[in-house]
């Protein structure tokens, strides 16, 4: 069984607001000088892949579409956690592409890896949160699709997934190949790599494929990004002072005045 995990590199979402800025030219977040990390849910996706590997001996390939010069630490983290292979599709536009634009490129890279049974991605990227790539990839690859999955098992050539739903969760069975988008759950908290694995990962090869060598053009989302801006905050917080009991009483009275009781 071969599992591909798509990893995206983003500016740390926990970055203090004072360091957050939009580049007026690219209309994207300024990345220079900011810490880069794996997009939050991608680590959960990697963990799910590694859990399947632990149980079935599957081979796990980490795949990133990014400028090769910047993605090193993140792809090596995947190797340190237990991925068998790592591939970087080197595209300087990677971080700025909308999901519909990057999907054909990711799909071409996955096809080039040969027979793939499962493709796992984070359920959304921490930056643009389009939630578009996993379903688009499933269509592009002709694979089954299950999104917002927390737990995964593989049985008899089918995958069984717990999908987060508006009212609780669904247990969904899918045929292979399948594309699953992974959300966070206590069961898929990313493992911490051991020091020796971090050291070992530095010696493992990372394949780099120039995007042009894949023979596909980026897709067209059919939308233009006109503007990205930080909205001005207008709220002023009024603090209720005193001992806890006084604060509580003041709050209760305010809620009454606001006709909320």
């Amino acid at each position: 069984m071969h599992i591909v995990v798509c990893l995206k590199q983003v500016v740390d979402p926990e970055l203090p607001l004072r360091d957050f800025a939009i580049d007026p030219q690219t209309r994207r977040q300024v990345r220079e000088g900011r810490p880069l990390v794996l997009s939050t849910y991608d680590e959960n996706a990697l963990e799910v892949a590694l859990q399947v590997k632990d149980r079935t001996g599957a081979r796990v390939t980490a795949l990133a579409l990014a400028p090769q010069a910047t993605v090193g630490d993140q792809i090596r983290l995947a190797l340190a956690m237990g991925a068998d292979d790592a591939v970087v599709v080197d595209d300087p536009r990677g971080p700025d592409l909308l999901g519909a634009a990057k999907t054909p490129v990711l799909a071409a890279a996955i096809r080039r890896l040969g027979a793939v049974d499962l493709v796992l991605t984070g359920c959304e990227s921490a930056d643009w949160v389009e939630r578009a790539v996993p379903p688009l990839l499933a269509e592009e690859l002709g694979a089954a699709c299950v999104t917002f999955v927390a737990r995964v098992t593989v049985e008899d050539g089918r995958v069984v997934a717990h999908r987060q739903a508006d009212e609780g969760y669904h247990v969904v069975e899918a045929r292979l190949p399948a594309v699953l988008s992974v959300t966070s759950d206590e069961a898929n908290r990313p493992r911490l790599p051991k020091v020796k694995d971090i050291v070992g990962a530095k010696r493992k090869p990372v394949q780099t494929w120039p995007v042009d060598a894949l023979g596909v053009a980026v897709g067209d989302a059919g939308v233009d990004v006109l503007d990205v801006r930080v909205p001005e905050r207008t709220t002023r917080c009024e603090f209720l002072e005193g001992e806890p009991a006084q604060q509580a009483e003041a709050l209760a009275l305010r809620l009454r005045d606001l006709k909320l009781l």
Partner: protein
Amino acid sequence: MANVLVIATVADGALSRSSLELVAGARTIAPAVGGGIDAALLAAEAADGAVEALHQHGVGVVHRVVHPLLATGQSDAYLAAAEACVRAASPAVVLVAADTVGREIGPRLAYRLGAALATEATGLEVADGTVVVHRQVYGGRAVATLAVRRTPAVVTVKPRALDAPAPAPTAGVVRDLPVQLADDALPTRVREIVREQAEVGLEDAQIVVSGGRGIGGPEGFKLLAELAQVLGGAVGSSRPPADAGWVPISWQIGQTGKTVRPLLYLAVGISGATQHVAGMAGARTIVAINKDPEAPIFGVAHLGIVGDYREVLPPLIAKVKALKGQ
């Protein structure tokens, strides 16, 4: 004349609220697109009340697909039914609710139609004759404005981002569309549906009491539940408690979880990460209780209490009870 088509679904036998919100969005853009408003109604049973509600709010043609699989969260079935309706209606713009199923079928529908795609819209408008989509990016830190460059286009819209529209009755027709769906022919199958809904639906609650990492564990949520009960509200959470398994994931509010727009939002032990704020900033009144006076949640709150929730909530519950005469 190309129409706007909304993908409508049924909840508890009636037209879902998010479908009505899509109709509101369609009414904003339909005049510029050049046509009227159609709906694709995907339902497990005839749902004549939902058809009537669509007509009452300005939808002309309702393309209806009725099939038992359309009650099961079976997204492949919804996709097939939606695709059949879209091909029958040939709309310029398709609006899909960004709920569990819609977040999956919106992009897949766009792929199959070769359509433009914009997801997670929080606002729709028309500028210079072009449909313009507003959406949050970077965990709610920034707002992006997208122009739809070609048609057809598929736009997914976040539930609770748009207000439900006022009635605008129109004479409409319903066209039943036969769609063949066989459970065993679809690539996925829903084996089981597990509900973990709060007593009061979180997204519909007028008052939400929400806890974050600062609650410290599942025990603390009992105190929040008690406060929610005396206030007549629902309990929610930010991401850390859901991640840690203290509360069901379905309680999670934020960019990843649910979007709520209650009259009152009480954020308890929540730091105010942008990811969370993206899901609750539309609340009328926001109250934050947090030990850390520097917590970013105070930047969006109207009323703030710096303190330990364990010391503040018990007297608050008692005072609210007293004021309500309980």
